[in-house]
């Protein structure tokens, strides 16, 4: 992020602090009758339009789940589409209530920009794709290679770090957008193309001959992507955080959109599920929401696994395996705190 933007965000945040510290975001949202959710202007699998012109995708599903938590109705969302440049100012200025736009959780964004990341919805990492004809098996053998890369992102910095640490030279081919970078790679203007692993998988499916290309085993960065809210309203941050946790916990407990109504009908002999679905205890009231808020969250788009498989999973054209994003019980690192 350039310094102008940083100043603008800081200025906007400073102006808002006085109001924001007391402002109850939840009340504002209820008054507006709609959740303003910041999403991408278009990212395969995460935010895109279907053939009816409706926004859909992994990040959009979170917006819908959160709206369901607040209103009991996943359709009460106003999507605000944001570019990489204006996403932070928009959140700081209160144009949106929550940002669910494949945003990497980093120290400076969390601390310096005055936002609160409420968790990780997708663990990504930067990787490389190259032609098999290169005869290279690992990213560490890429000495002297030309690399297509999107400018102005963390990917660019990660790349420089990786090559410096491994003491190899490369020739960057900087390009403005991901789609153009993909095209440049196809047109053989560079030997390899680097972006987040989820993006590489999506890209690979667009090639005429996917088998002529390989994704190198190295993942050179940590890109924990998750939703974020403004700092200063802990109640709203809690609602956003526990909506995400419900999605993940529901997968662990085996609660799906198909069986949630049955499980929520009356208390069963699993207290964890009972507390989550409101048949026992009063978790909803603690958040300032309805007793059945989690039921509505799960009815919106299902639990984490359902959402993942619908938009990113192996049955979609993107074909992303769960990998790191599997539950900790299945060899991944997805782990949500308990509902008690």
């Amino acid at each position, binding site marked *: 992020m350039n310094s102008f933007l940083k100043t603008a965000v800081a200025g906007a945040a400073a102006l808002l602090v006085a109001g924001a510290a007391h402002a109850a975001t939840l009340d504002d949202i209820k008054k507006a009758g709609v959740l303003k959710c910041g999403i991408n*202007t278009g990212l395969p699998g995460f*935010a895109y339009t279907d053939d009816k012109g409706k926004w859909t995708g992994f990040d959009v599903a979170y917006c819908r789940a959160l709206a369901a938590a607040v209103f009991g109705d996943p359709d009460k969302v106003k999507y605000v589409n944001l570019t990489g440049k204006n996403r932070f100012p928009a959140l700081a*200025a209160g144009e949106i209530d929550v940002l669910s736009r494949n945003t990497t959780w980093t120290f400076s964004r969390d601390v310096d920009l005055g936002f609160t990341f409420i968790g990780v919805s997708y663990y990504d990492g930067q990787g490389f794709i190259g032609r098999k004809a290169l005869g290279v098996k690992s990213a560490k053998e890429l000495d002297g290679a030309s690399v297509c890369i999107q400018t102005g992102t963390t990917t660019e910095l990660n790349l420089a770090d990786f090559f410096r640490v491994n003491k190899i030279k490369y020739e960057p081919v900087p390009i403005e957008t991901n789609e153009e970078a*993909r095209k440049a790679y196809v047109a053989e203007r560079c030997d390899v193309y680097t972006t987040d692993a989820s993006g590489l998988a999506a890209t690979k*499916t667009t090639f005429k001959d996917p088998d002529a290309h390989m994704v190198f085993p190295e993942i050179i960065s940590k890109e924990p992507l998750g939703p974020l809210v403004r700092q200063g309203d802990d109640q709203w941050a809690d609602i956003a955080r526990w909506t995400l946790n419900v999605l993940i916990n529901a997968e662990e407990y085996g609660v799906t959109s198909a069986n949630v109504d049955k499980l929520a009908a009356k208390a069963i002999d699993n207290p964890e599920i009972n507390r989550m679905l409101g048949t026992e205890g009063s978790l909803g009231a603690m958040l300032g929401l309805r007793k059945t808020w989690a039921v509505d969250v799960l009815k919106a788009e299902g639990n984490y696994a359902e959402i993942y498989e619908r938009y990113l999973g192996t049955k979609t054209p993107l074909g992303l395996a769960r990998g790191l994003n599997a539950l900790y019980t299945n060899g991944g690192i997805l782990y949500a705190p308990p509902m008690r």
Partner: protein
Amino acid sequence: MTAQPFHRSQAEMLPERAAPVTTVGIVGWLRANLFSSWINAAFTLIAFYLLWLMVPALIDWAFVNADTAGDNRFACTSSGACWAWVDQRIDQFLYGFYTADQTWRVDLAVVLLIPALAPLLFEGVPFARQLRWFSLAYPVVATFLLVGGIGLEGVPTDKFGGFMLNLTVGLAGIVLSLPVGILLALGRRSRLPVIRVLCICFIETVRGVPLITLLFVSNIILPIFLPPDVTLDSLIRVIVMVTAFASAYMAEVIRGGLQAIPRGQYEAAQALGLRYWQMMGLIVLPQALKISIPGIVNTFIGLFKDTTLVIIIGLFDILGIGNAMVSNPDWLGLSTEAYVFIALFFFVACFSMSRYSIHLEKRLDTERRE
């Protein structure tokens, strides 16, 4: 021997002969336009060679080897373009997120544009006098049709998108920026210092920053200074900013025209006892605007293409919506088709504006030129 009278001249007219074959017909045209010198001939040959390389490949890609049907990109198996998705998504290209069963209102607004514009653009339109009243009312009619209200289902402006958004912003900007630009140009040449300084400040400030910055400011910075419960409609913000931007340029174009009018014209008008607005309206501006036509249309075309920048504030014009659609996993990687398709829309719109400007210049040409 009778002396024959010696004639230096022919007694009767020689019959007309056809012009030399090298100066008429196709051959003549070719010689005059394509092969008039060795350099021209060389360029002609190079150009033809390039066309020969490109055109067949383009036709192959766009038509011969193209797929036009299918539910996703995997159905597009041939080597050419995949138009299937353009076919499937044409409504989004045209109307964006506009409520699906209400798109007839957009169509109607576009159809009504014809009688609204015709009497303003062309001479000899029947019922021109009556139609001018309709032209005047058209903005209200169109706004009512698009936004809704009394009796019509309301459609929030953030649902506007696709080419209709480009048209809405472009037309509103064009219609508003010309009068504002004229006023600014007159203000900048005014003898009243306050007006002059204000106009100069506005023009120089707005012209000194990129449009993208103005849009950004209107969207992110403005709400900070406004009371929290005041919400400005995104579309209105865009139209205001685009108009402000275009009118600053327009003002300078028209000022150029004003400066080209000889001093004598002003003095003659004043000698006739005309007041300022009469002098400007009847004598100076008609001449100044006429010579500014190319510049004015240039600004219009620029403005129309700038409407693609609305993506910066989260509105989806035809270009933005094309990008959003190729992010659908079913249609990944089809951006070439999207760009080609979108380019067609812009080319048709901008080329028509350009042709109309030439037509207008010819119609208004009162000077005899060789």
